[in-house]
């Protein structure tokens, strides 16, 4: 696994006060959002008995483990143990964390646990974006990239035209005229990949039909990658009548 920034969730899909589990190269992660709106990406493991923190519950600015209720603040420090309410919890009792940032409507995590010096993320913020969806593909990230380098940008406001493709680390851009979609590729394991898809542009413009087009495009891409008979250069998109 190459160290770097990887997408782990669509930001819009992670509501305040919720947590979810995901994987990166087989390692289990919890992604949660506190009541102040900040997202966090940690190892999905309570240091007490190993329960997945993604099964836990978020209250205000802490996440509590489902198993025994140990509470962790936003710095991953355990602050409260219900069975011992008067205990001064040692600073050594803390969850392991991944540096994380939100950019382009996506939550990104740096793949080195407890890193205090992550590399700078290599692409700039662009605002606004319109989130579309996350898709799960039974194929390796390499196969996904192989398909993306041949994929056509689905037409949004443009009449259609030549697609320009570019890749920066785990982010692929497909552009046709003023239309652009961004696909962030998350290697869940050696044989499974998540795609997080957004449209570059305002939801005021792209909410609705554009999202449906790109969603259908993504599903077609998945079928191609997972072994459909058609050549990947003949991707179809469908809009419901």
């Amino acid at each position, binding site marked *: 696994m190459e160290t770097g920034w990887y997408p782990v969730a669509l930001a819009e899909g992670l509501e305040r006060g919720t947590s979810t589990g995901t994987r990166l190269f087989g390692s289990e992660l919890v992604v949660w959002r506190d009541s102040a709106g900040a997202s966090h990406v940690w190892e999905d493991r309570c240091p007490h008995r190993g329960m997945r923190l993604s099964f836990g519950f978020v209250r205000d600015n802490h996440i509590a483990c489902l198993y025994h209720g140990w509470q962790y603040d936003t710095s991953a420090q355990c602050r409260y143990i219900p*069975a011992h309410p008067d*205990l001064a919890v040692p600073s050594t009792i803390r969850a392991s964390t991944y540096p994380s940032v939100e950019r382009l409507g996506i939550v990104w995590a740096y793949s080195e646990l407890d890193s205090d010096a992550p590399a700078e993320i290599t692409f700039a913020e662009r605002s606004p974006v319109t989130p579309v969806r996350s898709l799960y593909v039974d194929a390796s990230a390499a196969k996904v990239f192989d398909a993306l380098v041949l994929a056509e940008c689905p037409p949004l406001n443009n009449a259609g035209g030549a697609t320009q493709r570019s890749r920066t680390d785990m982010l692929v851009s497909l552009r046709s005229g003023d239309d652009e979609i961004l696909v962030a590729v998350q290697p869940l394991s050696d044989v499974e990949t998540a795609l997080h898809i957004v449209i570059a542009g305002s939801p005021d413009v792209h909410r609705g039909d554009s999202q449906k087009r790109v969603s259908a495009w993504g599903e077609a891409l998945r079928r191609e990658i997972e072994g459909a008979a058609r050549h990947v250069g003949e991707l179809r998109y469908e809009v419901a009548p």
Partner: protein
Amino acid sequence: MQGATVIVFTGQFRVESFVEFVNHRARRLQLDAVVETATADRIEVAVSGQPALVDAFEMACSLGPFDCLVRDVRRINVSA
């Protein structure tokens, strides 16, 4: 060690492995721990700190590392 609880583990030990395990768990729980006896069948540890964490330490060390077998755990004395 004043104010310490002495915990006695009996069983079958790879001494170096169990002592390392004990010290790691003590650091993790921010306890002061001194291994006072360490033989292949008996390990005595004097430990001090918050009572709940001493209890947690005892529980954690009662499982021990994979190459040791803890058959019994007792507290033989508690210093004033």
